[in-house]
């Protein structure tokens, strides 16, 4: 077993090694997904595949359906048509013969424990300390193929994770007592506590002061090397270029273009993509 990936190694090098090591963990297949809210169709037949251990960054103007797509992956939003599979297993449905049976609440919860999610507004539980936020789910959530953790195990793992995001000394603090960046790092630790195959980031830095953005991006950057599949919705283009192996550009409920960051940022094929990037990337971007 080749073990730890050196932090100094480039993101893409690291991805290759981890992808080779764990090829069956965290394959996301989204096929012709449609979703409407009332009369507005926000997802108009989205198809997207993210390889195990891959890092897909979804960019696009607001209202393009990025967040909705992300939320369909862990079944927070039910899709109207199409399907989403993780490692070949449908999300939210069970195949029996030629029928798709809608899963019951408990089964959906079990599936969700394999998909961590980090929200724009952190959504930490304000009445629980940082550590309690992290240890809550592993003790009570029904987990797929894994036993629930005991209180003591969860505590140990919780401290380990808080240490990983650099907040071990703030374990006893309530979210209100933490800065936005620290809160988001706790939220990432909380999502990691279930040891998910896939991590979804819904604009993780949009609610942060500019000076706090990097401390969160650094944590995510490190996760990109860990072999977990990451799907990230963000407006941080520099970060996208840095960490993604696929950049997906969405507009008006459709995927306009997807490619490696080098290609899509320097030579976008579609006019819509080009005009979007010209607006969001300031000229002094190439550092």
């Amino acid at each position, binding site marked *: 077993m080749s073990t730890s990936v050196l932090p100094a190694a480039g993101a893409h090098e690291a991805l290759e090694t981890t992808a080779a090591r764990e090829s069956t963990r965290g394959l996301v297949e989204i096929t012709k997904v449609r979703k409407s809210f009332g009369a507005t169709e926000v997802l108009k037949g989205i198809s997207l595949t993210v390889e195990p251990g891959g890092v897909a960054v979804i960019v696009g103007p607001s209202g393009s359906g990025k967040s909705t797509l992300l939320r369909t992956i*862990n079944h*927070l939003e039910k899709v109207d048509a199409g399907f989403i599979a993780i490692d070949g297993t449908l999300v939210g449905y069970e195949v029996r013969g030629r029928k798709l049976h809608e899963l019951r*609440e*408990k089964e959906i*919860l*079990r599936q*969700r*424990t394999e*998909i*961590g*999610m980090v*929200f724009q*507004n952190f*959504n*930490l*539980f*304000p*009445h*629980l300390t940082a550590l309690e936020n992290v240890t*809550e*789910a592993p003790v*009570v*959530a*029904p*987990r797929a193929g894994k036993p629930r953790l005991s209180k003591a195990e969860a505590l140990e793992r919780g401290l380990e994770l808080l240490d990983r995001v650099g907040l071990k000394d703030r374990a006893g603090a*309530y*979210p*209100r*007592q933490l800065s936005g960046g620290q809160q988001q790092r706790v939220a990432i630790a*909380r*999502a990691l506590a*279930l040891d998910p195959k896939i991590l979804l980031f819904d604009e993780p830095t949009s609610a942060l002061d500019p000076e706090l953005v990097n401390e969160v991006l650094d944590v995510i950057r490190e996760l990109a090397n860990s072999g977990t599949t990451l799907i990230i919705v963000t407006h941080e283009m520099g970060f996208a270029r840095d960490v993604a192996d696929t950049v997906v550009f969405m507009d008006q409920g459709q995927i306009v273009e997807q490619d490696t960051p080098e290609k899509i940022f320097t030579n976008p094929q579609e006019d819509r993509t080009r005009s979007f990037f010209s607006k969001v990337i300031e000229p002094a971007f190439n550092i």
Partner: protein
Amino acid sequence: MSSTATPVAQSAPEPASPGAGTTPDTTPAGSSGPAVLEHDVPEPAAPTPADQPGTGSTARKAATDYADYRLVPARHPWRWVGTAVVAFGVAGIAWSLATNPRWEWGVVAQWFTAQSIVNGLLETLKLTAISGALGFILGFILALMRLSASPLLVSVSWTFSWIFRSTPLLVQMLLWYNLGYLYEKISLGLPFTDVRFFEAQTTTLISQFAAAVLGLTLNQAAYSAEIIRGGILSVDQGQLEAAAALGIPAWRRSTRIVLPQAMRAILPTAFNEVIGLVKGTSIVYVLAYSELFYTVQVIYNRTQQVLPLLLVATLWYIVITSVLSVFQYYIERHYSKGAVRTLPLTPLQKARKFLATHAPATRETTQERGTR
């Protein structure tokens, strides 16, 4: 950025101390080329060499250095006037209460701790505790039903609240007590068959106590369901989403994540309800149930000392409410953790702080300013 800017601002007014003060000032003046490359240094320091020969430096000293000044708190003279007026009114009322012989304080004192009154008081407390607890538990379940995805549960919960909020408590109470007139026997079995698991005479089953508890509980449940539902709705939807995304089961989501946060919105109104219930129990006098109010009535019908005995009951209700208010304060404080950065001080801590700050005022304020 600010770390380079502040020493300049602080050192400028202190030309007397050469150690720290001189270094940032002299750097631009001495024009040691490469050191000035930082953006921040020239800007605040630039006016200094120009101002140095003139009167500017003394003006700047006066403008920035307040460290030795004494802090004078804002005065509120009208508060003192208002306090005097209120104090005068309170004194007047107290005087009249003490001197008017018709209040018959002697009679009040005589009955206040009489055995029958204490027994009535205990019955009142018992009714409040039992129907309050059962009412809120049932109310919580009704609230969850109302918020559930099942149309059946929603409509059952809605109908329950509708019926019990639309009928007078007095009528409900009499109805429960007279249930034996409507249904002679109560039995549990399979409907439309002769199979019976349990059967009893309604009149033996529904005593005065049972009717009182039943009436108060169901009524309380209907109201507390709405209070709890309101509290739950006040919790951010993102909390539920985060909990669902983490795979936390529904019951645990309600009890561990949502309810503790909802409590902040629920508690003030809930205590209102409980305090209302304490006095609301007096309505069971219609069932001739010997709680506090009924006991008092029985006594004054015999002794004709109506007002003093009502005063006895009133004083006890005030005592109960006061104790509940103290509980309310500390329970609300408990649930405010996480919602506020620092917990509000308890009255005891406030008193201590008041004494501490009002004795040696100057030292504390300068220290506080120093840390800023």
